[in-house]
């Protein structure tokens, strides 16, 4: 099952060069990509009548060709060439021609705040990790997850599973008991209270509500009985 990429994924040049082409699509280790962002330094800029060809270097591989089409009807404005030695953020489509990869940019912006570079490299690791996890757990019930610091270029794609260690100790305990319950109608709240002597009924109920809204458990015969979505 492939995740169709409708998102714009931050990448390193080395990842783009390593991407395999399958029919019309590109894949980086099974994650499908099309629109990408890279961040690097302009090493070379060549202006032609219909386009500007840049070579952008992010130090993970040789500089990548980035082509920006120029609107010949518009005078000035869009057609300012970014000088070599400038750090830029490029958003564009990955292309391959005669086995050579390049980007067709729809946006090239010089970086005004170099801290964006730090964010970008972390977003690369985060995005690829999450996209890969989504592929692996594609059979799970999609859940919401919060991703800190998504840039103005948009998010990474649909649901994924929350890491179990994102739960509090109480929630983890309740979840584990429910997971390990062999009974078909699941674990009842009363049973949970019996097993968890240190927890009050309201704490247990709060934990159950949280786990249920996150999709880890679901109610069965009634609102007092729960089973885990993660049955072992």
């Amino acid at each position: 099952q492939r995740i169709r990429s409708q998102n714009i994924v931050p990448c390193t040049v080395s990842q783009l060069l390593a991407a395999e082409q399958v029919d019309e699509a590109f894949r980086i280790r099974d994650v499908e990509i099309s629109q990408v962002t890279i961040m690097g330094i302009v090493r070379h800029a060549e202006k032609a009548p219909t386009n500007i060809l840049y070579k952008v270097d992010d130090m993970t591989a040789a500089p990548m060709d980035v082509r920006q089409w120029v609107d010949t009807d518009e005078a000035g404005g869009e057609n300012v060439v970014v000088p070599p030695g400038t750090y830029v953020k490029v958003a564009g489509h990955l292309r391959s021609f005669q086995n050579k990869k390049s980007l067709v940019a729809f946006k090239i912006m010089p970086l005004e705040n170099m801290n964006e570079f730090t964010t970008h490299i972390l977003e690369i690791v985060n995005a690829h990790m999450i996209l890969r996890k989504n592929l692996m757990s594609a059979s799970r019930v999609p859940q919401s997850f919060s991703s800190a610091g998504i840039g103005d270029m948009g998010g990474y794609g649909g649901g994924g599973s929350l890491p179990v260690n994102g739960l509090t100790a109480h929630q983890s305990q309740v979840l584990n008991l429910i997971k390990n319950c062999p009974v078909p109608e699941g674990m009842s709240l009363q049973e949970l209270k019996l097993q968890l002597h240190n927890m009050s009924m309201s704490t247990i109920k709060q934990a159950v509500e949280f786990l249920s809204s996150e999709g880890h458990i679901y109610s069965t015969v009634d609102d007092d009985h729960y089973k885990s979505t993660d049955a072992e």
Partner: protein
Amino acid sequence: IHPTGKLFVLSDGEGKHTTVELSEPLEEEISGVLEVVGRVTNQATIMCVSYVQFREDKSPFDLEIYNEALKIIHEFPEYFPFG
């Protein structure tokens, strides 16, 4: 920066220092945050191939956070390959 202009000392996000050597003396004044591309020598200095000064006119660059980010990306070579 050394008086000859062929050597300067940089400190990184953890406060550690390193010496950068240039093949030609510096032709300009440099200050602030620099990114140096070069080779490590066996005297543990860096032989500089090129350098770039980071823009800090709009916002200062947080070198400590950048250092932390580097450590993270090195932990995940499968998601951040160095070609």
